[in-house]
């Protein structure tokens, strides 16, 4: 039986979401995007830079290599098709790509009515437990994982982005299309719901 040990919590103490990207680098990327708007062939460096990231994002949600390849291909196709409308907002272009990827995954499950895949590592569940205020004592990892089953799709997405993929609230906001403070509030509300579910299950 797994338990949330002190060592697991310690391992998460330094949890810091994705590294900051300099404004110069973001601007440089914006120049690449502008070039790609004029000539789609110029999109290649962006494609090369983000393909693996997007693929992994999709794979975590499908657990199927070939399906992930199909969806990733669709993500980049949509990105290219919509590139003309893309506006630079001072955040990495990757956030926009992840947003498209998130929508594509949702669309896939909607169309195929399959069970949505959630990939997680046991250490990540520990990190999440550390964030839950007034975590009931004696809660096992299995209970937390089981509690995830009762979260709504939107709440689960927030938990995934924050705890299973270690993204900043700024990135989560960009991907989910809400403000940064809203992303933070919603994520902690999702955690509170999780706590409530766990207490209910324990009781």
């Amino acid at each position, binding site marked *: 039986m797994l338990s949330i040990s002190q060592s697991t919590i310690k391992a998460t103490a330094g949890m810091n979401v994705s590294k900051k990207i*300099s404004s110069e680098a973001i601007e440089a990327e914006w120049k690449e995007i502008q070039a790609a708007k004029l000539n*789609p*062939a110029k999109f*290649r*460096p962006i494609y090369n830079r983000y393909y693996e990231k997007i693929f992994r994002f999709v794979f975590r949600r499908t*657990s199927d290599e070939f399906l992930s390849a199909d969806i990733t291909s669709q993500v980049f196709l949509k990105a290219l*098709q919509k590139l003309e409308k893309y506006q630079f907002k001072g955040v990495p272009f990757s956030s926009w790509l992840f947003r498209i990827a998130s929508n594509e995954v949702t669309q896939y499950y909607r169309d195929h009515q399959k069970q949505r895949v*959630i*990939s997680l590592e046991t250490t990540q569940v520990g990190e999440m437990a550390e964030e839950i205020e007034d975590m009931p004592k004696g809660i096992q990892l299995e209970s937390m994982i089981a509690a995830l089953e009762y979260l709504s799709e939107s709440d689960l997405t927030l938990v995934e982005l924050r705890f299973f993929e270690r993204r900043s609230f700024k990135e989560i906001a960009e991907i989910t299309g809400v403000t940064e403070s809203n992303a933070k509030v919603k994520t902690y509300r999702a955690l509170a719901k999780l706590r409530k579910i766990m207490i209910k299950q324990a009781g």
Partner: protein
Amino acid sequence: MEKKNYNIKIDQPQPSASDIQKHMDFDGLLGKMGAVPDPTPTGKIVSGNFWQYSIGALLVGAAAVALLFFNPHWLENQQADPMTVHNYVNPPIKDIQAQFASFKVDANKGGTFEYGNGSKVIVPPAVFVDKDGKEITGEVELNYREFHDFVDFFLSGIPMHYDSAGTRYQLESSGMMEIQANQNGTPLNIKPQSTIDIELMSNVAAGKELDYNIYFLDEKQENWSYVCKDKIEKQPTVSPLEKTKTEIKQINIAINKLEARETAIVNQLEAEIPAPPKPRRPEEAKESDYIFNFEVDKSEFPEIAAYDKVLWKVGTNNPTFQKRWYKVDWDDVELKKISKLDYQMTLLSENEVVELSVSPVLKGEDLRKAQAEFAEKDKVYQAEFLARQQAIAKKKQERTRAIAERKKELKAKKQQVQAKIKDLQAKGNDREAVEVMMQQNIKNQFAVSRFGTWNCDIPLPSYEHILVSNFVDENQQSYKGNAVFHVDKNTNTIMTFYISGKDKLWYDIRSENLLWLVTKEGKLAVFDPKGFKGLEDKKEHTFVMKTMDQVVKSEADIRRILKFN
């Protein structure tokens, strides 16, 4: 509370980077977009001196094609001017490029073709296909050129770094070449599963470990792709003196060929622009000449109709002329025009027939009249002649401009080589022996499966010293956005970065370093290698670049400027 039945996967294995790479297909994506893949190197933001990042240990080994995966740290460290877009292959001086050697190949037979320095291209039969994979027959044009030193690399604009899984290596070359083929201007490919063998003659510093790899320049991926290990064969060492003498011979042959082409062009132009008819100066009848006087039917000879009396002088080309013919009572005389003003006169009598070549001569009023006419015609002729000369000169200049430039380059190179010969001869055998010892001739052997640029390289470890660098001209005006080129004497490579302010320059303090850039006016601005002395303990330095007076017009100009002492 409703259970959603998510499919939860715990600690499941993730696909590897290479598994993911297999699914990448940007060209396929473009195809879906209806866009045509960019045939030219794709535009790319190139950072400041980011070649220096994480060169680290030599890890390349047998790595496969490496792609630029996203690396936030890498992006964070970029120093590029974010507003500047540079091509991946970016020749800094577009007008000065290495010339291709062109070979005509019978596609059915193939053949072995030798480059000027002894390198060989060995083409098997039936190796060319068109873009649809259809085998090509008939004559194919094979173009081949090589790049050997930092000046060649500089002019080519080909990046000499290699990115592997986000880590950057500098490539030191033991020879680089580009090979292309076309039929009637249509580019061709090499048939799948077929190869063309290359024997690339080169030299490396003596004592260098001959452990090089072969890389292909993947312009689409904007990276060098590792292909295989380089098979190197040591070659006999030729003394620098012999080598330079051979070089002179090759230059002379090349100059002669260019001059022959120039002559052919002039001949063609002279045929295209016909010369005006040159009037002939009227000749005065002199007492000393042998002259015949007879009546001529002027209707048969309209050219002399204007004159009252035309006399006929026996040409000097009649050496057997006999004075007694003056005294013969000729029954008849016949005159026949044989050229513009030369005639054949036949004297006939019962016993004798004499054929003489004659020309018309005049005297008195007829002569004056003819001279006046000649003066007028000659004036017109001189003007037409001059106009023709000018027209030919103009067209010649247009059609032989490239030849003239190449000839000028070759002559400058010849002067350099001649000076080198003098230097070698003056310094005697000791110096020559030292120079021979300093380099090792090698033959790089490999097979190419694609047309493009191939490089025999070794990835370099990082330099230890970092200097935060700024670049200004003599008037303390900062450079911004210019490409800076950096080489060191001990390493056959070139490092390039674009100035964005406080750029990091990584260099070897034990070597001689040379830095330069190309100004917007096309001049070279150079930092003297001696200027590096005393910088060893510095963390930051402003390089004051010395701008050369003249715009560089040839490779020879560049070699004159960019050299180590």
